[in-house]
């Protein structure tokens, strides 16, 4: 499970923030997952639940979704990423490395591969709450 590696990263990052803020218990961690990487929230949640210990023992994990917007650098067109338009192999490649999108997706207006991943790329730690 690729999500497992990302869950480990989320916990390592949240632990660092907790230490910086002298939190002894983390009550809630809010994570945002961008549509481009197609991370499955139930799998991410399961991985987090299997790994949580110590200061995260009783933490609640909120996983929010974000749409992914791509913006063409040539014609300025902005469009929303939709993995349902891709075949399984392409979809999986972008799941593992979202930048692989540049090898498969083109601007629907001018066909340029030179676009910016404007939002909703991957996994982000949005908020952490706890008790000092």
């Amino acid at each position: 499970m690729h999500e497992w590696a990302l869950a480990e990263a989320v916990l390592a990052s949240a632990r660092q923030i907790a230490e910086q803020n002298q939190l002894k218990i983390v009550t809630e961690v809010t994570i945002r997952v961008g549509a481009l990487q197609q991370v499955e929230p139930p799998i991410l949640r399961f991985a987090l639940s299997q790994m949580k210990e110590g200061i995260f023992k009783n933490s609640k994990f909120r996983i929010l979704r974000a749409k992914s917007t791509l913006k063409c650098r040539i014609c300025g067109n902005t469009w929303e990423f939709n993995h349902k338009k891709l075949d399984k192999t392409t979809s999986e490649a972008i799941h593992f490395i979202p930048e692989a999108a540049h090898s498969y997706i083109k601007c629907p207006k001018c066909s340029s591969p030179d676009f910016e991943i404007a939002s909703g790329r991957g996994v982000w730690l949005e908020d952490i709450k706890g008790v000092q």
Partner: protein
Amino acid sequence: MLDPRISIINERLAKIKRIIVVSSGKGGVGKSMIAATLALSLAGDGYKVGLFDLDFTGPSTHIILGVSKSVQPREEKGLVPPVVNGLEFMSLVYFVGDNPAPLRGADVSNALIELLAVTQWGALDYLIIDMPPGIGDAVLDLVRLVKQIEFLIITTPSLLAFEVIKKQMALLCELKLPIIGVVENMKMDKAQVIPQETRRLGLNYIGAVAFDQRVESSIGNPAKLLSTTLGHSMNEIKKALGGKVSCRCR
């Protein structure tokens, strides 16, 4: 909003004894050939070795190693690199195939961070990293994100290459990063300019790799590659790996 991937990178690399970055300010000097051959040679000595192709826009180590298109990383709590010719091998080509990967700076950084964060390297004696030419995003990101890197610098006998490489070495020295030394690749005469200039900078001149026409025909054939002049030259580089690593420039 915080990118959580950064926090896990050094943990992912914790079981690797040495990370050797094969780099050059200039393109076309033979970085990939030397990176792949060095990795193969170390593996042939019995070391556990990984090879990581970070030249996203111009990857070539998979061609040098003759990696089959059916080979893919295994998904297990991340991505486990497949073992190819005795090397744990990771590259963006697993995900982009033969398609071009037109990546700008921020995309290069993101792809590099993603691969560093999700690749589950085993316990390795050496991780050899094949870099893109220049001192751009990939070099700066590695310096920023990975603690234990050492640089092996590749040049050709051309002053055009060396003048660019001098800038790279000045940067690495300013950042106090360890430089194992300089390899002069594809040498066709006995000129002493590069050795003298390298030593004048206070750096280790590891040696010259004589131009060998057989190298081209050994692409995709690791056993043949190791029998070329390039393959035999790995002994000098491996000796330098065991020597004192310089991080001082004059």
